[in-house]
């Protein structure tokens, strides 16, 4: 009798969690604050009028910012400002920066040049950290595409992402220079599994969606440095 009660409770609790946790699109913010996988940006953008804010923690192990001496927090706000334009502001600050550090502010603009159709991928032109007061620590200029391959592979929500970035803008550090890409797979509306190559190293992560709006990101940069974050996304 006790076993049956426990089973019923387990089923009810699991059902409730699944009900609370669904996210129809499986799209959310990467560690940079832009829409993407673990670290890399993708060809998807926030929907028109969608607003996302959150905080991420970057592991110092593979970080160029602050010469990799400190774990770093990333605070971000991102908005789907137009149906084809995602804009973001992020503030990056080391955990113990010392008196000489003011942190780093970064603006990102991402234009979706193509929306995904049956035969063509979505395509985004992105520019991160092109305007800066102190130094461009996270500059990126790239073109990235995403294509849902669920029907090809016969699985639920599998998306391939492929991009190419350049270092044409003078900066202290550049991200995503060269070929980058990844795969995301959402076996359920509550969770997305991600593996990616960010043009320097391989990363992997998981994303969970709670109460439709809350996203939890956890993963390993270089497959050995734990990073993650939390974001809240809603429609204005």
């Amino acid at each position, binding site marked *: 009798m006790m076993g049956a009660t426990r089973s019923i409770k387990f089923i009810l609790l699991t059902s409730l969690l699944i009900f609370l946790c669904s996210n129809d699109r499986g799209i959310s913010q990467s560690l940079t604050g832009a829409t993407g996988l673990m670290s890399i940006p993708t060809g998807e953008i926030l929907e028109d*009028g969608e*607003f996302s804010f959150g905080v991420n923690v970057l592991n110092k192990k593979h970080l160029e910012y602050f010469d990799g001496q400190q774990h770093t927090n990333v605070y971000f706000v991102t*908005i789907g*400002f*137009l*149906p084809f334009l995602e*804009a973001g*502001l992020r*503030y990056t*600050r080391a955990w113990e920066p010392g*008196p*000489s*550090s*003011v*942190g780093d*502010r970064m*603006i990102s603009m991402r234009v979706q040049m193509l929306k995904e159709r049956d035969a063509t991928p979505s395509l985004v032109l992105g520019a991160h950290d092109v*305007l800066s*007061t102190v130094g461009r620590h996270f500059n990126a200029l790239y073109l990235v595409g995403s294509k849902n391959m669920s029907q090809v592979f016969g699985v639920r929500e599998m998306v391939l992402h492929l991009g190419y970035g350049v270092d044409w803008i003078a900066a202290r550090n550049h991200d995503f220079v060269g070929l980058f890409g990844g795969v995301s797979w959402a076996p359920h509306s509550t969770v997305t599994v991600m593996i990616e190559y960010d043009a320097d190293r391989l990363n992997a992560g998981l994303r969970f969606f709670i109460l439709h709006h809350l996203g939890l990101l956890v993963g390993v940069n270089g497959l050995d440095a734990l990073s993650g974050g939390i974001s809240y996304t809603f429609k*204005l």
Partner: protein
Amino acid sequence: MNINHSQAVLWFAALIYAPALLASEKDLSRAASADSILHLLVKKGFENVAVVSDDKRLMVAYENRIYRDEVRAIKEVLSLVMPGAKNSQTVVLVPQNRKTPLLSISIKLDDYTAFIDGVFSLQQFVSTMQVSFDTDSIWKALRAASRANSSFYKFDLVIHPQFKAHFGNRRDPFESQLNLAPELSASFWMGLRFSGELIIPLQNELAEEEDFVRPGIIVLNQTLRLPRAIFLSAAIGYFDEQRYGVDVEIRKYSHAGRWAIAANLGYTGFASYLKGVWSYTDIDLLTTSAAAEYRWPQLNLILRAVGGQFLDRDRGGRFELLRQFGEVDFGFYFVKTDAGENGGFHFSIPIFPAKYLPAARFRISPAKNFQWEYRYRRLDSSGRQFETGNRLDDFFKRLHPDYIKSQLQKFEDWDKQK
């Protein structure tokens, strides 16, 4: 048939006077429905209400200070007016601000009936509405009509929250200031508004002199509507950015309100109040600007380019993009003047509640929204302008033909009363 003399006279009189008697009965019925509509609108709390009818049109002027959202107010006015407008072919609403007409909204009774009967969808019904900046002809009929529930000599105390934040200071990466700014305002005649604001600091990590209670914007403003959708606004008093003096603004809408041009001229001096003492300079600064504005109707996106001389006597331009997501505004701006370059964003979000108590001789209410602006380079002075609290574009941000039509389509709770 034998008809005597008196019967013949009666028949003759009946033939002569019947149309007139029928017409006067129609007039009486129309007048009764106009009175009834006026009574309903006043009872609901709308101000400066006038209802006038002729053979074809029922014209209704009203002023909303009940609903936070002007589009919600339009929908409520329609719900009250349309069921009583059966003797008219068209209903024309004229929303006002300080008794100044802003727009005309024309609805054909047949279209409304089709919507109520389910023949038209909400989208189809809204698409048939004619919303226009042109009020010149309709105002001729409404201007002389007596107003019920005047908005004049009523004092409003509106509590504004103020929040400022600076990022990236070496000593403290996040510094903030939180104030309450109660604003007392009243209107005494058409287009005039007096407002006085007091800033009460609650928390302050920014400038030390802002630790104290101080005056905010204190302004006497007169706004006029001229023919052909031209608006003029003149303000005198103490503005923000510690400026006092005069400010004049003119604005013209064209192409169904999608285009607007504006010019602004300010002549001000510095004034600051600290611990009971005013410090000030002579009025010696002329700020000027000219602006062109376009509204992208499908997106409720406003693109604005401004050029002129700003507060630091710097000359240059400012480009703004403002998006309206229902009652939420979010925008970016870029400034380039000979004092430097800057950019940032600003947003405005509505504050609870969505409906206020009817205005009485004295009323306290929260501000309609909370606004915040972020400047990327906070110490940079390029492109700064002072605010008078009476900018003409604020009149039409939520009373614009395209905005009204896009937002009316979102209301699903129509009372389909026949």
